[in-house]
C-alpha cells in the first residue's frame, strides 16, 4: 500500500503570483498615467505616477525619510508586539473564564468599532506629545480584533483534537500549549493581521494629527506645502511599512504554524 511520494511543484511556479501582482500594479500605474495626461483625472488632485516616482529621490534626501520610516516602523512594531502579547493573553483569559467572556465580549467588540483616534487629546494629556501617545492610541484601537480572534480560535479547536490530548492524558497546561494554541494560531494570526491594519492606520493618523515625527507628520507637511508628488511618494513609504509588516507576519506564521 506504499504510494509513491507525489511530485513537488516546479520552484519557478511559486513566483508566478508575485509576478502577476507586480505586472498588475504596473498596468494600473500606466492606466492612471494615461488618464491623468489625457486630462480625465485632474493633475491637481492626483499627480501622474511618473512625477511621484521622480519625487522619491527628493523625498529621500531632503525629508529624512529613512529616519521617519524607521520611527513609524518602530511605533508600529511596538504596537504590534503589545497587541499580540496583551491581545492573546486577554483572549485566553476570556476563553478560560466564561463569565468574564459573557460580561465583556460585547464591549470589546464595540471598542473595535469605536473611533479611538478622536480621543487623541486625552492621550496627549496622559502621555504627553511623544511616541507613547501614538503607540497607545494604536494599541487601544488594534487590541479588540486580537482578543476576539483569539477567543474564536480557541473556541474553534476541533473537539477530536482535544480528545486526542485527553486520550494521551495531557495536563491542562500541555493541552493548551501542545494542542489548543497551535490549533488556534491561524485564527489568532488573522486577528493580529487585522490589529496591525488598525494599528498602522492609527499610528500614521495620529502622527499626522499631532504633527509628531514619522511618516504621518511628513505627509502633513508635504500636503500643507501642496507638494502632491512628494505627498504620494511619502504615502508609498507608508504602504511599504505595511508590506514589511505583512511579509514578516506571514513568515512568522509559517514558522510557528507549518503545514497550513
Amino acid at each position: 500500500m506504499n504510494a509513491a511520494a507525489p511530485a513537488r511543484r516546479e520552484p519557478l511556479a511559486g513566483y508566478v503570483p508575485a509576478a502577476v501582482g507586480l505586472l498588475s500594479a504596473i498596468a494600473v500605474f500606466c492606466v492612471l498615467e494615461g488618464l491623468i495626461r489625457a486630462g480625465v483625472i485632474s493633475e491637481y488632485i492626483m499627480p501622474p505616477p511618473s512625477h511621484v516616482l521622480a519625487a522619491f529621490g527628493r523625498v529621500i534626501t531632503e525629508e529624512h525619510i529613512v529616519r521617519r520610516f524607521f520611527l513609524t516602523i518602530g511605533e508600529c512594531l511596538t504596537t504590534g508586539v503589545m497587541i499580540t502579547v496583551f491581545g492573546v493573553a486577554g483572549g485566553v483569559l476570556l476563553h478560560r473564564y466564561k463569565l468574564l467572556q459573557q460580561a465583556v465580549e460585547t464591549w470589546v467588540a464595540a471598542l473595535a468599532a469605536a473611533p479611538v483616534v478622536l480621543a487623541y487629546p486625552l492621550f496627549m494629556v496622559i502621555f504627553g506629545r511623544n511616541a507613547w501617545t501614538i503607540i497607545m492610541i494604536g494599541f487601544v484601537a488594534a487590541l479588540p480584533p486580537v482578543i476576539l480572534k483569539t477567543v474564536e480560535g480557541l473556541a474553534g479547536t476541533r473537539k477530536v483534537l482535544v480528545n486526542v490530548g485527553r486520550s494521551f492524558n495531557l495536563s491542562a497546561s500541555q493541552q493548551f500549549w501542545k494542542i489548543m494554541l497551535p490549533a488556534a494560531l491561524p485564527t489568532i494570526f488573522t486577528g493580529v493581521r487585522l490589529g496591525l491594519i488598525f494599528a498602522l492606520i492609527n499610528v500614521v493618523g495620529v502622527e499626522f494629527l499631532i504633527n509628531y515625527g514619522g511618516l504621518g507628520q511628513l505627509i502633513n507637511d508635504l500636503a500643507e506645502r501642496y507638494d502632491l508628488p512628494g505627498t504620494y511618494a511619502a504615502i508609498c513609504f507608508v504602504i511599504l511599512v505595511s508590506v514589511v509588516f505583512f511579509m514578516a507576519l506571514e513568515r512568522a506564521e509559517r514558522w510557528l504554524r507549518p503545514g497550513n
Partner: protein
Amino acid sequence: MDNPILVADKLGVRFETAEGPVTAVDDVSFSVRQGEFLSIIGPSGCGKSTVFNVIGGLLGQHEGTVKVAGERIDGPHKSIGMVFQEESTFPWRNVTDNVAFPLELTGMAKQKRIERARHFIKMVGLDGFEKRFPGELSGGMRQRVSLARTLASEPKILLMDEPFAALDEQTRLLLGDKVLQIQQQLKQTTLLITHNITEAVQMSDRILVMTYRPGRVKRIVEIDLPRPRTSDIVGSEAFGRYVAQIWSDLREEASRGMKDEEAHMLHEAQP
C-alpha cells in the same frame, strides 16, 4: 474467560435531553482476552461510540466499571490507545512529529523518538512521507498517521472508533488488511467500534452485536476463520455465512432505528 485484559462490567449511560432522559447504553458487559480482536457492531444510535468514550475514559458520568489488567480505570489511561473516527492528526506537525507526539510526552530524547516514530511510520506503510504535513496526505493516509501515533504510545489495548468510516470501500478493505497485519505482528489487543459488517468479520475474533437504543449486548459471535487473514477472505463462503448471520441479528435493530428516526423527524416537522 481466563485473565481477560479488559473487562467492562454493567456499563450504563444516561443523557438528559430536551425530550427527557435517554438511556444510551444499558447493562453492557463484555471482556477481551490478551491479543484478541473484538468488534462492537450495531446500528447508528445504538451507543457504540458511547461505549468507546466510556472505555477510553472520555465520558465521566456512567454506571458500571472498566478494568484493565485487573485495575479499575476512571479516566484516560496509558494502557488504552484511541484512534478516532474523525480526522485527528495535528495539521501543524509533519508525519514524523505527529507519530512522535506520545513519545515527546514521555520526555524521550529527540533522536530516539524520531527513530521510534519512523519504525511505526514504516509499519503503517507511510515510509517516504515522513516530512509531509497532513494537508498533503489523503484521508486514508491521515488515518494511518493517527494509527501510527496511537501505536507509538505502545498501548496494551488499541481502541478504534470507526476509523475508516469516511473512506471508500476499496481503501477501507486495504486499510483493514494493514490493521490486521499490524495486529497480528504486534499481537495487539484491539477493540473496534464499527457499523460495517464486512469490516467486523474480516478482522475480528469475536463480534459483539448491540441492540438499538438502549444499547445492550444482543449476541456475541465467535468468528472461526483462519488467521493470518487478508481482505481475500471476503470472497469465501464461510465469510458470507458470518455476514448473513450478523446481518440477520442487526436487521431488526437497524429497522427499529430507522423507524425511530422517521418518527422523530415527523414529530419535529409538526407545527
